[in-house]
């Protein structure tokens, strides 16, 4: 059959598993509360791939069959494999515990062996972390972590082209802390053991670039890099442009046993130290030609024509030397040593050996990082940048965009009240977007619309004016945008006299839950506007530590100054106003203050000191006022900028006077990674959601126990923010690396509790079902385009099973008000929460066989709105629940209209039934006549009489059904085909059928009556005469069956075959 396959707002539950008391939880074995228990709730990814996201690593190989196999490493979205040069991609790293990719290398000796270095090496402020080096020996199907677990990030991997077991891993190492686990590593046994063969001179110097002479694998060049990032500063090289730095360029001619530093004294033409980041590469086609970009006070490209002994200074244009920490790779044409690319703010290319470069980024996004030149056709070039992956077929001048990599890096997400609701969010270097949560035909790239430029962050529909959107970009820039004209207005608060406002890279915005249109925004002061940004009130003093040591961003960068707002510190980072008490506002800062006002900003109290054992200076990554009680708040703390990747979550119920530790490094309760967001459900106070750098965790007991949610094969990607759409009970996730994900109805999760976990099985409540309007939309965009799925069509049915169902029937039936089974739904068998969907349709009509399938009539009519019973039979146990079926909220027709449509469809269905019986009877007459005729002699008059009878019966049949076979567009329409067209028309609209459609039912009924009369006449005349003749000849008479056999299920194929073959003779 696989081959056939190819081609609580209104939750209703009667016998559902119900809420348990807290006491019951105390006796529960919480081991059942795990990922398997909750992930069956599923989740869908709506992308988008239109903005895509940063590509940090890339490797490809040409295959013997002419295709190109491509592995793409997203900065924080895993590894994607294409076996068709990029037309289609498949994520192949989703089961691994990290998604940040620094390096990918395909073993040139065996293309099924792939090496992946986790942890991106483009060390911007928002960069994620890795956990070592992985190897696949089956083309990416399965992976094994083969070492370097404390590397945090890996810049490059080289496999010896003559010996696949010899591999070099270039490890810059930890970004935020000292580490001895950095430098250049080598294995000679395929990853079983690793040796540190080149170590930095201090604990902040690692390997950032490596190149091997393709013709002599023993010859290596390695760029060592001294670097460090803190929450408020960054250095590439030493603490200042001229300070001592551990960076340097080294070479080995014996496979890394010994190393020689390339220096200005020993190597003529090479620049003087100190250095920042270095990129080095040997031309694949000429071992003597070596290129090195060296960051120094005089950053430039250098070239050696003698294998690194002497050097010549080449290009030092702005794009060559731009942001070296972020752009440091060189890619030389595999056949032409004079042609090379440097990915940079824009992609630049030289055709003269590095003497000059031109901007060839053209239509790409920019901020490029990786390039692959196809050795089979060096005009064919791939580049990965902050906006995704691009292909050029003209040598790197004009570019195709890959619209199939949904690796977008959202910072935040919000939703509106439209139906379907829209999703709003800003992305790293990819602006601010509005997308549809559902759209006819699926959520394609075209369903996303950009509203700003730059790096996007918070974004909200203005609840006071639906025509406008608030959108924020880096460093607290905020605009109010007209969603129709895209006119934008800068409404960022401005500094006072002799004052500097400190805006975080990711400045917090908060809509007041009490006043539509009131917006809060934080620099070091909290601002509030009540007039769409026309004016701002400053409602706090400086709420930060105002530590001057953390305000030296103009000195940030190390060798090359880099002060892009990404390091701005001592700022407000999180804001939350209590939905229970206006003017009660929580503020968290990036330097460890947790402030509370209960009087609308008149007075503030820093309560962070009340949290016991919390290290000082951490980022308050999120503070969330409780949804049910003004004294309650949840706060998460992030210390990853100190090298501490552990989770911290606390709760207060007394306005911050005391705090309960929900998650700490000593008791992580299974959470992994630093926490970005903690939110309480808006319906069930015990339901908490925590987004960390490595995924989504859920607690159903107020933070006592946590389970990772992996529904929809959700990878271990950073969850930066989440939103709940209250009408739809949808949970919407902003991931930093895999776009937007949606759990369409979290009602079952709200009702999962200690008691349910210990039940063998039972239903869980869901939202009432809507018969959503059927609609067409979208268009074919080929295979190289991402389309996100819509919510699954049908009434959602949720149930829980303590264990996987293996033996005997697990049956789910739907019953109408009379207790009749109107549908049976295939069950899911997984452990934990299961979801199945009922189409809300009755069975399709019985349709007489003809030349082709009557496609409209393969669908049953939608049931009238109402309450239906769902019965699950599991072994000897049965469970009942109710499903409420409602009209689409958007419907402009009434339940009575729907009933009229249903009734009309059922009238047509009945017409089909009459036809089916009539065709069966006619065919039966013909079959018997033919059979009897065949028994008679050639000259027997009765033979001719029977033949004529059979022919007449068939003539009548052919008035009912089309019979021309052959597979062409025959245009042959008979009663059956006309009826199918009418059925389709009535079924296409859920409202009251048109008068002419109802009239058409009458017309077709009359026409069928006419045919039926012809058959009746046939029976009275020709058949009666024939039977009389047969009886005279002592033959059994021809019988007319009462109708076609009831065939509730469509019948077995054998029965159908028999049925079909009996009536055919064409």
């Amino acid at each position, binding site marked *: *059959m696989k081959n056939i396959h190819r081609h609580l707002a209104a939750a209703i539950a009667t016998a559902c598993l119900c809420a348990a008391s807290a006491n019951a939880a105390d006796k529960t074995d919480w081991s059942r509360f795990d990922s398997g228990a909750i992930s069956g709730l599923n989740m869908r990814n709506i992308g988008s791939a239109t903005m895509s996201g940063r590509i940090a690593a890339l490797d490809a190989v040409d295959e013997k069959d002419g295709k190109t196999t491509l592995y793409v490493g997203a900065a924080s979205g895993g590894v994607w494999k294409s076996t068709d040069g990029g037309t289609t991609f498949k994520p192949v790293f989703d089961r691994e515990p990290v998604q940040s990719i620094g390096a990918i290398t395909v073993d040139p000796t065996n293309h099924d062996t792939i090496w992946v270095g986790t942890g991106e090496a483009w060390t911007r402020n928002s960069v994620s972390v890795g956990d070592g080096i992985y190897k696949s020996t089956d083309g990416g199907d399965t992976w094994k972590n083969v070492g370097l677990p404390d590397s945090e990030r890996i810049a490059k991997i080289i496999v010896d082209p003559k010996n696949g077991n010899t591999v070099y891993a270039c490890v810059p190492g930890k970004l935020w802390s000292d580490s001895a686990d950095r430098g250049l590593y080598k294995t000679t046994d395929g990853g079983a053991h690793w040796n540190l063969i080149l170590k930095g001179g201090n604990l902040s110097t690692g390997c950032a670039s490596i190149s091997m002479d393709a013709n002599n694998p023993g010859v290596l060049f390695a760029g060592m890099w001294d670097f460090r990032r803190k929450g408020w500063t960054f250095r590439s090289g030493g603490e200042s442009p001229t300070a001592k730095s551990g960076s340097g360029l080294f070479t080995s001619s014996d496979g890394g046993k010994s190393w020689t530093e390339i220096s200005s004294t020993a190597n003529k033409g090479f620049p003087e130290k100190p250095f920042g980041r270095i990129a080095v590469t040997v031309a694949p086609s000429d071992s003597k030609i070596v290129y090195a970009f060296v960051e120094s006070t005089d950053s430039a490209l250098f070239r050696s024509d003698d294998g690194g002994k002497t050097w010549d200074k080449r290009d030092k244009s702005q794009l060559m030397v731009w942001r070296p920490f972020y752009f440091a790779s060189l890619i030389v044409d595999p056949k032409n040593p004079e042609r090379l690319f440097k990915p940079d703010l824009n992609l630049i290319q030289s055709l003269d050996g590095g003497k000059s470069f031109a901007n060839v980024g053209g239509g790409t996004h920019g901020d490029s990082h990786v390039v692959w030149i196809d050795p089979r056709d060096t005009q064919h070039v791939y580049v990965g940048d902050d906006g995704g992956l691009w292909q050029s077929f003209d040598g790197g001048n004009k570019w195709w965009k890959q619209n199939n990599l949904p690796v977008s890096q959202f910072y935040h997400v919000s939703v509106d009240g439209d139906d379907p609701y829209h999703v709003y969010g800003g992305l790293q270097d990819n602006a601010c977007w509005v997308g549809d949560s559902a759209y006819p035909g699926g959520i394609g790239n075209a369903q996303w619309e950009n509203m700003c430029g730059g790096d996007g962050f918070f974004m909200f529909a203005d609840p006071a004016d639906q025509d406008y959107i608030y959108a924020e970009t880096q460093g607290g820039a905020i605009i109010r945008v007209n969603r129709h004209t895209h006119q934008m207005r800068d409404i960022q608060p401005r500094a006072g006299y002799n004052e500097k406002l400190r805006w975080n890279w990711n400045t917090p915005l908060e809509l007041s839950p009490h006043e539509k249109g009131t917006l809060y925004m934080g620099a070091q002061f909290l601002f509030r506007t009540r007039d769409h940004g026309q004016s701002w009130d400053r409602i706090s003093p400086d709420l930060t530590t105002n530590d001057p040591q953390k305000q030296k961003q103009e000195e940030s960068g190390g060798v090359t100054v880099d002060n892009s707002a990404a390091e701005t510190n001592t700022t407000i980072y999180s804001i939350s106003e209590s939905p229970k008490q206006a003017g009660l506002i929580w503020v968290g800062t990036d330097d460890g203050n947790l402030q509370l006002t209960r009087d609308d900003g008149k007075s503030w109290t820093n309560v962070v000191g009340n949290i016991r054992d919390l290290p000082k200076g951490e980022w308050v990554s999120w503070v969330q006022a409780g949804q049910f009680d003004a004294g309650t708040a949840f706060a998460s703390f992030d210390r990853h900028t100190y090298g501490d990747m552990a989770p911290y979550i606390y709760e207060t119920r007394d306005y911050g006077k005391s705090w309960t530790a929900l998650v700490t490094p000593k008791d992580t309760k299974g959470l992994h990674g630093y926490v970005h967001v903690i939110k309480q459900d808006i319906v069930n106070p015990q339901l908490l959601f925590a987004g960390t750098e490595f995924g989504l965790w859920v607690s159903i007991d107020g933070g006592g126990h946590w389970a990772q949610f992996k529904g929809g094969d959700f990878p271990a990607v950073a969850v930066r923010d989440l939103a709940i759409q209250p009408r739809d009970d949808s949970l919407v996730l902003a991931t930093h690396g895999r776009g937007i994900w949606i759990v369409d109805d979290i009602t079952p999760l709200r009702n999962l509790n200690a008691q349910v976990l210990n039940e063998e099985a039972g239903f869980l409540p869901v939202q009432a079902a809507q018969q959503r309007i059927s609609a067409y939309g979208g268009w074919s965009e080929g295979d190289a385009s991402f389309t996100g799925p819509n919510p699954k069509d049908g009434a959602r049915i949720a149930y829980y099973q303590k264990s*996987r169902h293996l033996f005997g029937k697990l049956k789910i039936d739907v019953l109408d008000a009379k207790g009749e089974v109107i549908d049976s739904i295939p069950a899911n068998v*997984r*452990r934990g929460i299961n979801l199945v969907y009922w189409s809300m349709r009755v069975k*399709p009509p019985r349709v007489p066989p003809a030349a082709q399938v009557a496609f409209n009539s*393969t669908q049953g009519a939608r049931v009238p709105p109402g309450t239906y019973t769902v019965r699950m039979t599991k072994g000897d146990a049965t469970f009942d629940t109710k499903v409420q079926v409602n009209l689409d909220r958007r419907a402009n027709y009434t339940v009575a209209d729907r009933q009229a449509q249903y009734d009309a469809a059922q009238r047509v269905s009945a017409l089909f039934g009459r036809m089916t019986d009539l065709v069966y009877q006619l065919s039966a007459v013909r079959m018997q006549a033919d059979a009897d005729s065949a028994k008679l002699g050639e000259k027997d008059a009765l033979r001719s009489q029977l033949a004529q009878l059979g022919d007449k019966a068939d003539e009548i049949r052919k008035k009912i059904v089309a019979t021309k076979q052959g597979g062409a567009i025959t245009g042959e329409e008979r009663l059956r085909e006309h009826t199918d067209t009418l059925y389709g028309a009535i079924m296409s609209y859920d409202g009251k059928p048109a008068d002419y459609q109802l009239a058409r039912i009458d017309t077709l009924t009359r026409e069928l009556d006419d045919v039926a009369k012809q058959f009746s006449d046939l029976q009275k005349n020709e058949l009666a005469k024939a039977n009389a003749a047969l009886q005279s000849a002592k033959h059994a008479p021809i019988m007319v069956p009462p109708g076609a056999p009831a065939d509730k299920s469509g019948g077995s194929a054998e029965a159908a075959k028999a049925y079909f073959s009996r009536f055919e003779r064409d």
Partner: protein
Amino acid sequence: MLKSWVTMLGAAGLFAAVSAQAITVDELIAKNAAARGGLAKIEAIKTLKAEGKMRFIGGFGSIDLSFVQYKQAPDSVRTEATVQGLTQVQSWDGKEAWQISPFQGRRDPERMSADDAKSMADDAPIAGSLIGYKERGDQIEYLGTEDVDGTNAYKLKVTFKNGDIEYVYLDPDHYVEIRTVGQRKVRGTLTEDITDYGDYELVDGVYFPFSINTRTRGDGGETVLTVDKAQANAPLDATLFAFPSTPKSGQ
């Protein structure tokens, strides 16, 4: 995929779970065979006929068909799916595959390409992809355990003689298949089908999964099979599987 119908279990739960590290391919297959009812009973099945309902779910909604599948040792399979009295046939006789696709008016059999036949050929052996793999020239590796929707399943990798791959996941307590992931190169392009199994029922003392749910990665489509009844060793017409000798004889 209905090959898994021969993945039977006779003594569910009788086998204590053993260390994932210690177990070998042959041990797992032996436990699988024993759980299914024993190798003797499995090998005694020479034909298998299964009937039930098929729900095909796609972007348009869903469509219900009835189906029958016939299998005959060593490696023949024929599947029929019927709606409105029209029957789609796909068959593999161990050498070639053919089909009848009548839904748009054609009733004559068409030969299928060798690549399109692969999934049928892989599924055809009545003993499934584990039992008898050595004799068929296939290879199997044990890859440890992996989470399958909350079940920490044993994972086996079957490499068929033709190069196709199937990952087989066995329940850790009962040793029956709970999921297979089939990977095939079709005209040079990798296709991937994921199939989940449940509702195991006894047929002549041997367990078969009566719930089979298959989805193809990337296309969003899903086929759910519900077997109503299955019969072992039913006499089958010898001409059932081969390409029809006359235009209508395949129907």
